[in-house]
C-alpha cells in the first residue's frame, strides 16, 4: 500500500521543514505549498490524501482556500486539518463550518496532531503501520 500523501501549507519555511521531517518519520509522503494560490494548484496536480492548512497565508487567506477546495468537485473530498496561530475563538467554528475536519492552534502537540491526521485519512489510504510519533 502506498504511503499517504500530505500537502503541508504554511508560509513559514522553517516550520514547513520541521513538519516535513516529522511526517516523513511517520511514514507519510510530504508535498508543500506556501501560499493560497499554490495550494489549489498543488492539490489539483498532486491529489494529496490530506491537507494541513495554515490560515494566515499570502495570496488567499486560509478561509478562501477552504472555500475553493469545497467548491471543487475533485478536491472537496480531501480532508483538511487547520493548523494556525490564530485564536480558536471566532476561527475554529468558522473553519469547521467551511469544511475543515479539525482545527489546531499552534503550537500543537505532535501526538495529537498525528492522531487526528491518522483518523482523518481516507480509510483505504491509511498507512499499514499506524502513525506514531
Amino acid at each position, binding site marked *: 500500500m502506498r504511503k499517504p500523501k500530505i500537502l503541508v501549507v504554511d508560509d513559514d519555511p522553517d516550520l514547513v521543514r*520541521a513538519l516535513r521531517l516529522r511526517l516523513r*518519520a511517520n511514514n507519510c509522503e510530504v508535498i508543500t505549498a506556501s501560499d493560497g494560490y499554490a495550494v489549489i494548484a498543488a492539490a489539483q496536480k498532486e491529489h494529496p490524501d490530506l491537507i494541513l492548512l495554515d490560515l494566515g497565508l499570502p495570496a488567499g487567506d486560509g478561509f478562501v482556500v477552504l472555500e475553493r477546495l469545497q467548491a471543487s468537485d475533485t478536491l472537496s473530498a480531501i480532508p483538511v486539518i487547520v493548523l494556525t*496561530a*490564530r485564536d480558536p475563538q471566532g476561527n475554529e467554528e468558522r473553519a469547521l463550518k467551511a469544511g475543515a475536519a479539525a482545527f489546531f492552534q499552534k503550537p500543537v502537540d505532535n501526538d495529537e496532531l498525528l492522531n487526528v491526521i491518522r483518523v*482523518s485519512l481516507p480509510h483505504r489510504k491509511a498507512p499499514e503501520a499506524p502513525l506514531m510519533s
Partner: protein
Amino acid sequence: MDHPETHVLLIEDNQGDADLVRLRLVEGRSRVRVDCVQRLSDALQALGKETPSLVLLDLNLPDSQGSETFRKVLEAAPNVPVVVLSGQDDEALAMKAVHQGVQDYLVKGDISSKQLERAMRYAVERQALLRSLEIARKQQLEFKNQFLSHVSHELRTPLTCIHQYVTLLLDGLAGPVAPEQSDHLKTVLKSVSQLHAMIRDLLEATRVESGMMRVEPRCVALGDLIQQAVTMMQPTAQAKQIGLEVGVDQRIPLVHADPDRILEVLINLTDNAIKFTPAEGAVIVKACLVETDPNMVYVSVTDTGRGIRPEAQSLIFERLYQDPDSVDNNRAGLGLGLFICKEVIRLHEGRIWVASEPGQGSTFTFTLPLYSLSKLLAPVITYQERLRPMFVLVRVELASLTNPPRGNWRETWLQCLETLRRCVYLDKDLVLPPMEASGPLETFFVVASTDMDRSQIMTTRIREQLERVVDLKTKGTLTITTMPVELGSVDLSQPLEKQVEAVAGAVTEMIMTTWEKKQWHAGSSGKHAN
C-alpha cells in the same frame, strides 16, 4: 454670538413650579425650547423620541418617587445631562442623585434665572467631558485588546518553530541524542511550555477584560474531572515530595460546567497550592455538598503551605497580582491565573474565595451549579413567554463495533456531537449535554420543538451528516429513534417556569424508562452507518 437652540425637557408635575421654571428659562436664554411633561412615563416616551440638550427633573411625580425617578431617567438617556429640581426638605436625596450620575441640583423656590442658566451650562459641559472620557477609555481598551491579541498571535509563530525543532531533536528524528543533551532539550521544552502558558493567559485575560470569554457547559461528573487534574499534577507534587490527595464525596450529583475550563481552574489552583507548600507538605482537592446551599457543589483545594496574609487575601484574585514574598520569584508567572479562574467561575454563576491563616496553609473554594435539565430547556422550549406546542425526543446511539472501542473513540463521539449540534436549530432544539464518561456505547438525546412528521426531516439530516463522520464509518453503528414528548402532565395554567419543569420531568422520565430499544417508535429502526 448666536447660540444654537437649547431644548429642555422639564419633568415636573406641579403646574405652578413648572410655569416658574419656564419663566426663568425664558428670561435667561433667548433661544430655548421647553417641553414640559408631568409623568415619568410621558418623560420616558419623550426621551425615546428625541434627545433633549438637558433634563430638568422633579423627583416626586405621580407615577414615580424619589431615587427611582432619576435612576429611570438616567437609564433611558445616559448621555443627557440631568439637573434635579429638589424641594427644601429633600436635599439629601438630591445629593444622592448627584452621586449616582445626575449633574447638579437646584432647590425649588430659590431659583434665579442666573443660577438656572449657570447650572444648565455647567451640567452640559460636564456631561460632554464625561462622555468624551468614556469614549477615550473604550477606545484605549479596544486598542489594548487588539494589540495583545496581535502580539500573542505573533509570539506563537516562532514559539511553534522552537517547539517543533526541539521535539524533533528529542524524538531522535535528527540523529541520536546523548542523555545529557536530551536533559537540556527537555529543559528547553519546559520553558517553551511556560511561555506558551503565559501567552495563553495573556490572551485569556484580554478576553476577560473585554467580556469575550465563553464557557460551554455540559453535564459533568465532577469527581472524574478532579481525578484527572490530580493525576496530571501528581508528577509536579512528587518532585517536591508533596502528598496530593483527592477527597470527593461519592454522592455529589452531576454539575453543569465546561469540563475544559474547570480542569484549567483545578490545575491552576493545585499548581499554586504545590508551589506555595514546602517539601513534605500536603495538598488535598475535595468536593462536597453544603446543606445551606443545595443548588451548588463546593470544590476546595487545601494546602499546608505558608498561607496568605489577610491584607493580600482580598487582592489575590486581581489582575497582575504577584505575591511579593514568592519563594520562586524567577518563575512567578504573569499573575493572571487566579484572575482568569475567578472569571471562569463567575461565568458558571459560581463563586470563588480563599480562607487562609498565615503559617497554617490556605483553602481555595469555588462553587458550581448542579446540572438542571429545566434550566437548559427553558430558553429553547419557550417562545414569547409561552411553551412551544410540541416536542419530540430524538435518541442517537453510537455503538462501537468492538468492545473496548478501537482507536480514539472519544474523538469519534466528540466529532459526532459537534456534527449533531450543527444538524439542529439552536434556538428551538437542544442537544442534551452528554455524559462525560464514555464507553463503547454513546447515547445522545435531542429535545426538538417539532412534531413527529417533521422530526423525520431532522433525523434524516442527522443520519446523513453523521454518516459522513469519517471515523464512524469504520468504527461503529448508528441508531436513531424518535418519540413524542407527552405533554399530558403539563398544566398550561401554571406559571411558565412550572411548565418547563414539567417538560423537563417528562423528558427525564422518558430517558429513564425507555432505555430499552423496543419501546421506541417503530419505523425508525437502527441502521448500520457503514
